[in-house]
């Protein structure tokens, strides 16, 4: 008996649906979290990071 026979008869098809539900749940969680009002300020700061990256001691900040 080959591995493919065993797998073929194991009835694993519903695992794909379980994975789909899990993926969806995580995805929804990310969305809720991202749009949570409590994070507005933190995410605003994060968005400004590219402008916070030149802090030379010997040269003025880049314009």
């Amino acid at each position, binding site marked *: 008996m080959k591995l493919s026979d065993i797998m*073929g008869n194991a009835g694993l098809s519903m695992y794909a649906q379980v994975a789909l539900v899990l993926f969806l749940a995580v995805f929804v969680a*990310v969305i809720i979290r991202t749009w949570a009002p409590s994070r507005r300020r933190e995410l605003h*700061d994060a968005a400004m990071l590219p402008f916070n990256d030149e*802090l030379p*001691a010997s040269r003025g900040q880049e314009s």
Partner: protein
Amino acid sequence: MPSMTGHAAAVPQRASTGALLDRFSYDDDIVRKFLFATLLWGVVGMLVGILIALQLANPFFNFNTPWLSFGRLRPLHTNAVIFAFAGNAFFTGCYYSTQRLLKARMFSDGLSRFHFWGWQAIIVAAALTLPFGFTQAKEYAELEWPIDIAIAVVWVAFGVNFFGTIAKRRERHLYVALWFYIASIVTVAILHIFNNLSIPAGPLKSYSIYAGVQDAFMQWWYGHNAVAFFLTTPFLGLMYYFMPKAADGPVFSYKLSILHFWSLVFMYIWAGPHHLHYTALPEWASTVGMLFSVMLWAPSWGGMINGLLTLRGAWHKVSQDPILKFFVVAITAYGMSTFEGPMLSIKSVNALTHYTDWIIAHVHTGALGWNGFLTFGMIYWLLPRLFQTEIFSKKAMEVHFWIGSIGIVLYVVAIYSAGVTQGLMWRAFDETGRLAYPDFIETVLKLMPMYWMRVVGGTLYFVGILIFGWNILMTWARRPKSYAVPVIEAAPLRGAYAPAHDPAHDGVPVPTSLRRRFVGVQWHRRWERAPLLFTVLTVLAVVVASLFEIIPTFLIKSNVPTIASVKPYTPLELAGRDIYIAEGCFNCHSQMIRPFRYETERFGEYSKPGESVYDHPFLWGSRRIGPDLAREGGKYPDLWHVRHFENPRNVIAKSIMPSYSQFLRTDINFEQIQTRVDVMVMLGVPYGDAVTRAPQLAREQARSIGAAIAEQGGPKDLEGKQIVAIIAYIQRLGRDIKANATASAAGVN
């Protein structure tokens, strides 16, 4: 002063804490190196592109030289523009932005240099092997196994250097661009390793461990995600850094960028099967691929809108600033190609477009517009910063922008029209119900004006990159005697993290309800601060999706019904197949007839999954510049093939196929065949007798084919030449199911 801790972490530079600040500098030398490599390989890759465009317009441009023929140069073009040009462009921007976003010099200058020189050596190795016929025959994964190992080593070095930099960073939060880099680095490693698993049959020859349907599935899981994680996510990372920089304002919506990221990571990995609609791939798999491809529409457009709206309030600058012009066209091209991609992956649209030039037009919208223009804009932005001088000519930037844009439009419009034209001609029936264009060559010749228009468009784009190069070199020539290396000061991260915006500080009460706690609990924030966990989760999303999609075809029998009459290739046919692979015949000829009447009328019975179970690697192809060959066996006498290979125009007046007259002169290496058969046996192909006497069997078959050619009035000295092997292979194609109609009933469904 405990209450100050949080603010010190958020705003590292404070005069009063000066003694606590680290002093360091960024490594811009490596950025400059990658910048020049981008330019060099851009010129080389696009020059090869123009040459192969000419070859399709007129076969004269193959120059009757094997190492300059289309089948061998087409992979060189794709590898050069993807991995050499776009790859080096990504590394340029990645090394520049990563150091600045993390407030840290790269983890190791030695690893940076190893990455740089290693990557260039790999590109040179590609240029020295592909034109000489060393190929694995898998699109964008053509390079043979020793080079594949080198790629894995260099990529790991890059990964160690990148994650090492994250580990020693001085900025707690990982900016969204870095997420895109992380996803790209880990996913490319996974894709590369699993698609290239093969068993060597010589220093530059190997056979894929997968066969037929499974190999096709792995290849397009890889192929599509190579587009996703080598040409899309890395460049989105660049967009999220350089677009705000150039527009001088933050990204339109950071939240949207988070959503953009996670949607792409969740969905992209599933989309691969849309490259295999209506083939022998199980239908459920291609439906999954189609659904996820269509879903990708939303996040891709979300990302495009996010990029474009970053220009809010700055649109007036676009007319003045060529850099912004490049970015706007690049992001628009991203939007157009991510509109077109989902559309092409809808099965009924795909039925028309698959195997046609429409796909070529689609990828060039992405490559020339998105990757090319984003690279140009980014490098123009970097030039004054890296070379510490004014850019040499702003006017030249304008000229480059316009000539490049016109080039893209000419290219894409021409090739898009060519695709639709040929697709419609293939499926046209006349009023009596017969094919309106039964001769395949008719559908090719119709495209010639468009092919010439592509040459013009491509050349314009190439002239643009020459202007770009000239501007770079002239700016470089004006650099200072020695570069100033600014010293940066930033506070190191503390071991324990105190949130920058403690709710208590803002006067917000500690959440009490479950929902509020979920919303308030800092789990995503923790992911962003815990790169290791973040990376693991990204890998999980990618791997789980891949396994769910791929494993069933390997392990569930009903997915690949076997056919009893399908037998392995004879040793001589296998040798012929290796020639077919080396010459890159699969670049123009598919071996996969789809179950449509207009396909079966033209080419014969549609292809079954069980027919390619011994095909290591699969050779289904993705583009029909010439006719499908899945049922070519027995269609023409051997002598026809001799004349055709010698010069295709001997038998088909206006064929654009290169001549392969070298087949009539080059000897078959019979002794080598045993090694090849041995490797096939290791892969589980039942070779029986041939296990011990492959060369002898091959010689016997070669003698009989040689005799048959002589009998038909052809040359008499061909029995030891390559032409005999390739004819043996071609004459075998698609005949097994006709040999014995009693297929085994392994197909359960």
